[in-house]
């Protein structure tokens, strides 16, 4: 089992950014682009087309039968790496050697057609994922059983609930049997019970001698499934080691315990000009920026940003993670309908109040994100801030009443003594 399954040598991928935001163009844009650039040429300016390396000189090896996790912030190049390994896109330089049949799962239910029945979609999706008809026939019953949608097998999937849809889609994917399996965050779907089932299946695959490459934001899933991990940052390989070591290094990197981060030149995704983060900070009740907070006291997270063009819709929000990297919750300013409309250019602050008596006495990490859902990701800073919640005031807790759990909410209890008649 010491044979190599994946060999990545100096792989790089360059993308063009600049004037055009979306990938495709229209003739008109090409024409105006041509006129602009020639006008610029006459005036002695250089063309505005810039390039950036989404991946730069990444090399690593994965042994056969190894499950390896890939972690990194949004935009670090993980997806690009997956797309190259899945042969969806070609690298700009470097070379990848794959020793074995590869199947990639970058999404569940790719190619599902709403008008077709569950049965039809199993065959279609199976073929899209690279299974042969014979193979699907052989596993058909198993797939159906795993999905739990037997009764609706001959119903068009457009009538399925989203949960059933996802279960069927994952069931097909889970029965892929390639030598190398490449998986992107597909587990972030479905209800908790089904997620557990999926993780269990992934574990079987990972421990069943198959080579698995697994990308996730769920650090606990990675720690659980993968012996080793690769950390990619800004397109470069930052670290390759056992997953525990990589995860803890990753969570601590780029995080500040100062209670605030400022970006002097703004922070946004490559190619985004209409939006930038300028700072985020944690403020306690007295208005002071801090990262150490009392368990019983509320605090504020303030996100400052600049909008340069009118955005018909956008949302700014936070993800809060536990110290093991699990998501505690995500929240957006647009959750409040008053803030879900258009935003004019200007400097903004989105602030939200986090209640006291909610977090446990632990370290948490906060990520900030901004985007237009389903359209564009504008900016993000993963694990930008660390928040340390401590028992400062509450005597009963100082007396050693430590509690299990990611959160420690103070609930309203009622104790009622039933009157016996």
């Amino acid at each position, binding site marked *: 089992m010491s*044979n190599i399954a994946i*060999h990545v040598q100096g792989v790089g991928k360059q*993308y063009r950014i600049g004037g055009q935001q979306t*990938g*495709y*163009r*229209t*003739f*008109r844009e*090409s024409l105006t682009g041509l006129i602009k650039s020639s006008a610029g040429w006459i005036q002695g300016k250089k063309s505005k087309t810039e390039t950036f390396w989404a991946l730069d000189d990444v090399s690593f090896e994965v042994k*056969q*039968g190894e499950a390896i996790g890939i972690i990194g912030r949004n935009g670090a190049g993980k997806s690009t790496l997956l*797309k*190259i*390994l*899945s*042969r*969806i*896109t*070609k*690298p*700009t*330089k*470097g*070379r*990848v*050697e*794959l*020793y*074995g*049949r*590869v199947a*990639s799962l*970058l*999404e569940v239910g*790719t*190619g599902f*057609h709403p*008008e*077709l029945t569950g049965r*039809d979609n199993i*065959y*279609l999706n199976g*073929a*899209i*994922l*690279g299974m*042969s*008809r014979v193979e699907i026939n052989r*596993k058909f019953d*198993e797939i159906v059983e795993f999905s739990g949608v037997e009764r609706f097998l001959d119903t*068009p999937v457009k009538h399925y609930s989203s949960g059933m849809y996802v279960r069927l889609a994952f069931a097909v994917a889970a*029965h892929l*049997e390639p*030598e190398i399996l490449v998986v992107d965050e597909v587990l972030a779907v479905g209800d908790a019970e089904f997620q557990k089932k999926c993780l269990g299946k992934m574990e*079987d695959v990972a421990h*069943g*001698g*198959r080579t698995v490459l697994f990308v996730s934001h769920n650090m606990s899933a990675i720690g659980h499934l993968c012996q080793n991990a690769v950390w990619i940052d800004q397109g470069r390989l930052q670290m390759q080691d056992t997953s525990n070591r990589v995860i803890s290094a990753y969570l601590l990197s780029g995080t500040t315990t100062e209670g605030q981060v400022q970006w002097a030149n703004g922070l946004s995704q490559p190619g985004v000009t209409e939006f930038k983060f300028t700072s985020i900070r944690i403020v306690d009740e007295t208005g002071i920026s801090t990262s150490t907070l009392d368990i019983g006291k509320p605090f504020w997270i303030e996100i400052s940003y600049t909008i340069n063009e009118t955005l018909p819709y956008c949302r700014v929000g936070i993800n809060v993670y536990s110290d093991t990297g699990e998501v505690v919750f995500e929240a957006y300013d647009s959750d409040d309908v008053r803030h879900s409309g258009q935003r004019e250019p200007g400097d903004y602050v989105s602030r939200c109040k986090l209640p006291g008596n909610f977090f446990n006495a632990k370290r948490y990490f906060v990520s900030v994100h901004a985007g237009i859902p389903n359209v564009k990701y504008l900016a993000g800073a993963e694990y930008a801030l660390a928040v340390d919640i401590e028992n400062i005031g509450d005597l009963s807790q100082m007396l050693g009443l430590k509690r299990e759990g990611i959160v420690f909410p103070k609930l309203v209890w009622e104790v009622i003594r039933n009157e016996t008649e």
Partner: protein
Amino acid sequence: MTTNDSVVQPLVPDAALVPQIVIEPQKGWASLDLRDLWHYRELLLLLTWRDIKVRYAQTVLGATWAVLQPLLTMLVFSVIFGRFANLPSDGVPYPVFTFTALLPWQLFAFSLTNASNSLINSDKLISKVYFPRLIIPIASALPGLVDFAVSFFVLIAMLGYYQIPFTTRWLMLPFFLLLAVLSALAVGLWLSALNVEYRDIRYVVPFLTLFWQYATPVAYSASLIPEKWRLLYGLNPMTGVVDGFRWALLGIGQLNSLLWVSMAVIVLLFLSGLAYFKRMEATFADVI
């Protein structure tokens, strides 16, 4: 694990030294990789089958649409061009004269339109999973053959009604049918790949097929074109196809140099379309 056979087959030591898949930057023109295409043949059939099934899934009249479209067009043409304009139809009743041409034409127009929009309609597939991209335009062009087959029965009935004899020339039909599909694919390959980069194509295609129809002897006879312009006229590959259909089914006209010009154009368009498609293929996922 589920079953015994899901255990990975150990690779033969020798085989393990040779990577099964090598991913490298694409330099210049890509090779066709027929082996890869063959490996995914089942997907091609399934996608074709999906398009056929989905297309009539929610229509009341179902496959009747396949017949109605050419039939109604034939009626309109017969009244306007046959009756009012009194266009010559080479000694064959005008309705069957135009219907014979409408079948390959509609196959061509349908396949061309579908193929052209196929890639951008499959953007999710393209950005999420690997398979030879050529499958997409091909799979979306093929369902046109089903419509063709259905309408063809109507044509046979019409031939019987007008008492047009059945000849050995019918044996040439598959060849002309192939030419029609190839022409549609040839143009479809070009347009689908261009469509990924330039979304204008989506709006160009309806106009293109409209103008193209008038440049093709569907409603009129190719014999109306002056002799000296004939070869130039043959540059439209559908001229050769439509003429071939009339020659084979109605026994009118003759196979001449015009067909050779059309065939040469088809081959040229097809090969160049294939080459362009394969060249652009590597960037589809990045720009779509």
